[in-house]
């Protein structure tokens, strides 16, 4: 038993921290405030930088603890950039890498790791989130190609994506287990139209939009892995990676809040001393540290379980996601309270992070869904006797 990072991971942490603080952090506020078209240009630059730094490639490798180590630094500098990078590398690149045919991997992955080719994952619809049975998008075989109809909703990166992974019904009657299929749909495909980015409360640098398939035609080699009916099984595995990534986003965001408000608590004085020396303020700093520290361990623990192919990883990634995302909101709230009126102002880091944090408890399975999954596991273990 050993809770320490190895030397490679420690070095990675240092390198990524220095890189992100220098290259990503300075643009984070502008990314949040800019009109969407300007933000997109800056975001593309960030993704290329992360590609050059080797981060996007790292997300396709198997050392999942390092995903967390490096990812925390990206999220600490700019959660919106983290989300966009995660959407292309983890939500698009990882499934390609794990399930894709040799030709599919060869075609897309090198661009993804460089940050030049942007991908995204499109599962959610207007009327279907965690309940995949509600999905309406279909794919029908016509000759040697497939025709997709339907629309996807709240898709991060959709408006800037060069390709997306779309979850569709290839056989509704076969049910979840055999009826769903992921298709790789490239930008410019006939009948594919991404919507304009929607205005979001937080993570404003990462564009989110609708995307519509209107008799959208793709070739038969667009089926992820080359075999239909594997969508649900693939989806479940993708979700583990994604839950882990949102947990990492939450810890990085929490760290940024804690550091910012600790700096403030040291420099701001009241009644003759730094406010952090007042017990009520200090207690808030202490709780921020506690949540981040435990949360980071839960992310590592879940990542380790995934690396070990431990079936517990399904529940442990949910535990990590639930704990860290709720903690991030609590931490952002405490951080704003420590900074008083200053943290309430537009343009301050804490105000931005407070809005960003709200995403984490909603996306990729709400806290309510995570609790349902976790509870079912414990309850089923004690069903009889």
């Amino acid at each position: 038993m050993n809770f320490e990072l190895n030397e490679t991971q420690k070095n990675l942490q240092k390198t990524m921290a220095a890189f992100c603080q220098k290259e990503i952090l300075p643009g984070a506020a502008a990314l949040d405030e800019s009109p969407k078209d300007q933000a997109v240009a800056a975001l593309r630059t960030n993704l290329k930088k992360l590609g050059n730094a080797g981060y996007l490639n790292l997300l396709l490798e198997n050392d999942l603890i390092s995903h967390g180590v490096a990812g925390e630094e990206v999220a600490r500098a700019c959660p919106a950039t983290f989300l966009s990078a995660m959407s292309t590398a983890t939500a698009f690149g990882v499934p390609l890498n794990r399930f894709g045919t040799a030709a599919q991997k060869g075609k897309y992955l090198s661009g993804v790791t460089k940050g030049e080719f942007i991908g995204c994952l499109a599962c959610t619809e207007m009327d279907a989130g965690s309940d995949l049975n509600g999905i309406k998008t279909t794919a029908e075989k016509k000759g040697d190609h497939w025709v997709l109809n339907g629309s996807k909703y709240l898709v991060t990166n959709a408006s800037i994506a060069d390709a997306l992974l779309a979850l569709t019904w290839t056989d509704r009657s076969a049910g979840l287990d055999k009826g769903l299929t992921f298709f790789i749909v490239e930008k410019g495909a006939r009948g594919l139209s991404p919507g304009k980015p929607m205005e979001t409360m937080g993570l404003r640098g990462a564009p989110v939009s609708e995307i519509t398939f209107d008799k959208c035609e793709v070739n038969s080699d667009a089926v992820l892995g080359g075999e239909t009916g594997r969508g649900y099984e693939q989806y479940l595995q993708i979700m583990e990676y994604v839950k882990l990534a949102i947990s990492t986003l939450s810890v990085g965001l929490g760290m940024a809040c804690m550091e910012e408000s600790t700096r403030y608590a040291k420099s701001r004085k009241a009644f003759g001393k730094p406010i952090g020396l007042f017990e009520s303020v200090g207690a808030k700093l202490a709780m921020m540290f506690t949540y981040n520290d435990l949360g980071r361990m839960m992310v590592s623990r879940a990542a380790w379980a995934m690396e070990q192919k431990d079936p517990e990883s399904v529940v442990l990634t949910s535990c990590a996601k639930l704990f860290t995302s709720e903690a991030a909101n609590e931490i952002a709230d405490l951080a704003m309270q420590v900074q008083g009126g200053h943290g309430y102002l537009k343009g301050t880091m804490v105000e931005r992070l407070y809005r960003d944090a709200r995403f984490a408890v909603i996306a990729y399975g709400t806290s309510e869904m995570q609790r349902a999954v976790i509870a079912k596991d414990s309850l089923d273990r004690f069903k009889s006797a």
Partner: protein
Amino acid sequence: MDFSFTDEQRMFRETVYRFAREEIAPLCEEADLKSEFSFDIWKKMGEMGLLGLPVPEQYGGQGADFVTCCLAGEAVGHAGVDGGHTLAWGAHTYLCAANIMQHGTEAQKKKYLPKLATGEWIGCMGLTEPGCGSDAAAMTTTAVRKGDKYILNGAKMFITNAPLSQVFVVFATLDKTQRHKGITTFIVEKDFPGISTGKPLHKMGCRCSVTSEVFFEDCEVPVENCLGGEGLGWLIALGGVEWDRSTLLAPFVGGGIFMLENCARYANQRWAFKRPIREFQSIQNRIADMKVYLEASKLAVYRVAASKDNGMALNPLYAGVSKVYMGDKGFEMSSAAVDLFGGYGYIHEYPVERNMRDAKLGQLGGGTSDIMRMIVARIMMM
């Protein structure tokens, strides 16, 4: 990183769990109802080797590492043993014997450890006083050197095991003006002249451990019973924190697992509105939060233990985190378990009632949650 236990550690946990469930747990409910320490339980724990777990084999113990000690604590709690008996065990083994093991002279170790390791002698530790707890520098129990003896005067409060103990590890000050640097530790025996214990205090929870005040009236302690050297008491107390934040918290982790299992069973069995209550999301939410709490708690406890086993200095932030989270969240979860059981949860026959009373100690003993936050904040503000 490696979150796995060795096969040996896993097997040991299983053995202890089975033993505690079959031999000890059935005695606990009645003992708790009577607020009675059970020598029967104590003897069984001694025979199992639990009372001298970390003590080297040459002094009659098992020579177990920190992680193994924590696993044993977790297993006993998981088996359903009450917080009183696990607390008595903790105070004896980790606050008394472990301090002698770590700081004692060869003669002290030879004299005290073998009998403590078997449980033939019971031990305790006295740091807290009627007027001071975490503010140890405010300690008023004094020690004055007179020839080949120290003379102790003062009182200690909330001392777990005191009325049962043969061996007391006691903190006193040689010079109050030196604050922390004046604090010195002594091994005091029950039969030394001038030491006495008060009546057992009636506690909210952990009722089977016997807790009382200890009085020193010109208590004579031979010089060779100074533990660790003059003025080093504060360092000894701080060193105890790594036991406190791992091995003493481990039974709370086990108690939490026991609680979750009881809740899960009950939620499957109890019906309302024509369905098992497990189908209600309010019930599920409590179960899920308990599971998350347990996962986080295990990590907090075993990180402290593993870093000690791997030869690393204790990070005081990690120690504070373990304690504040497990104390506060643990109590919240124990209350959620009572809610889940409804009226039955309020009744003594159902273990969640006892668990809630026992869990309250997690927020108080060994430094309150408020103090933990102060410590963490102080380091952050440096």
